[in-house]
């Protein structure tokens, strides 16, 4: 059941890597140099250039942003909610960039693989 996590390898965050990203819809994580997830996000139907622009815009919000990883998916909304829930189950709190969710609930998913 580890497939619910975003298991893709981290990539170094640099202009060339971001420019080479697909313009497709999907989900992603922005991490620091140690691999701590700073923000979970998605490239949805309003994104200008899909993952390419969404990752660039989200990374720009975090000074410590050093890495990223992503997954192409049309089901970006449910996958995003799933990744938030799994992160909460694994770490007991949301990434700093996702902390402000208003009164929206985060789903409870048992920490799979534990």
């Amino acid at each position, binding site marked *: 059941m580890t497939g619910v996590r975003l298991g893709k390898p981290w990539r170094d965050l640099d202009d060339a890597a971001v420019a080479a990203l697909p313009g497709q819809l999907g989900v992603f994580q922005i991490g620091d140099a140690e691999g701590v997830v700073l923000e979970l996000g998605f490239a949805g139907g309003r994104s200008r250039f899909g993952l390419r622009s969404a990752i660039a815009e989200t990374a720009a919000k975090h000074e410590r942003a050093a890495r990223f990883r992503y997954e192409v998916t049309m089901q970006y909304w449910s*996958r995003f909610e799933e990744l938030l829930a799994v992160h909460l189950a694994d770490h007991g709190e949301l990434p700093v960039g996702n902390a402000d969710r*208003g009164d929206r*609930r985060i*789903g*409870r998913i*048992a920490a799979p693989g534990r």
Partner: protein
Amino acid sequence: MDFELTAEQRLILETVRRFVHEEIVPLEADLDPDASELPPHHRERLVAMTKELGFYGLDIPEEYGGPGIDLVTRTLMAFEMAQHRAGLYAPCYGVFGGAGLAQLYEADDDQKERYLHPVLRGEKRGFFALTEPSGGSDPARAIRTTAVRDGDDWIVDGEKTFISGADKADFGIVFARTDPELGRKGITCFIVDTDMPGFRVRRIVHTLRSTHYAAELEFNRVRVPGRNVLGEVNQGFAIANDRLSRNRIPYAAGCIGVALKAQEMAIAYARTRKTFGDYLSTRQAVQWMIVDNEIDLRTGRALTLEAAARADAGKPFRTEAAICKLVASEGASRVVDRSMQIHGGYGMTKDLPLERWYRELRIRRVGEGPNEIQRLIVARDVIGGSFH
């Protein structure tokens, strides 16, 4: 059957139509095309408006504070409330309130105090768990989740799948087999708190519908107190069945609602888009698509209202509910498909709501009982002689 609108109905529908047009549709310009929730400040503002209008909690029985509007009028309102991008699964983003889980109105006073009233106050959320990996269309045989008595409690073991809202719920209405020898008479309905040890949401099931997703659940020796049996032991199937029949009418109405909007869009586009020097609306190929849309819409609308009228009159409506669900879901799918065709490439984009309706309507032919099951219900009623 006469469906001439009363003056009061006209006023209500005009109010709802204006609400959707002026309050809901403009907000969608800034939301993700797959969103099904409003930002909290907008939600609070619009809920206050629906309360002021006297339309909040439309499906709540009058004795529990609902506005006491009959089902025909609520069906007409549902046609209007679905006419926006998220309208099929999140009509008006829920700002008209929900009725909670209908089964809770059959609960005892203690259960109502602990579950129904908190749901109506917006303090608790529940889910309905019938379908299992072994199937959902034939629950009497497919349910393998068991509940075994242990003193005053029950021990629940098993799995459920395609359960909406379970990952964010406080409790669930869960059907389990309590007597393996009795078939449909051996199923009991339990209220299960999601903080009980042994309850686990395994994963989200990703489908064509990206929001309002479903989840896969595990029950591993979950101890449920005896006071959480809903209704009578071994009588759970009747509770499930009643809910399934009732839900088919609003389910059909939502399909018709988005299809009405798709047809409106198709006509507007055909009147303005030119090819080879003339408007699409002058081309017979396009005209016939619009005519076929209209036939599907009128058929689905009339059959849905007929089912609602029979329910309002206290007459049996199982057959009519099954027919309207299958006609509306299949007809609406065709309407949206034709409307996409008329829009050409734009019809496929997330700039327009058609592609979302297309994906979500596909689920409607399976959800709330696949259309083959609806045909089976009608066949049983017609051939078996219980059709009136």
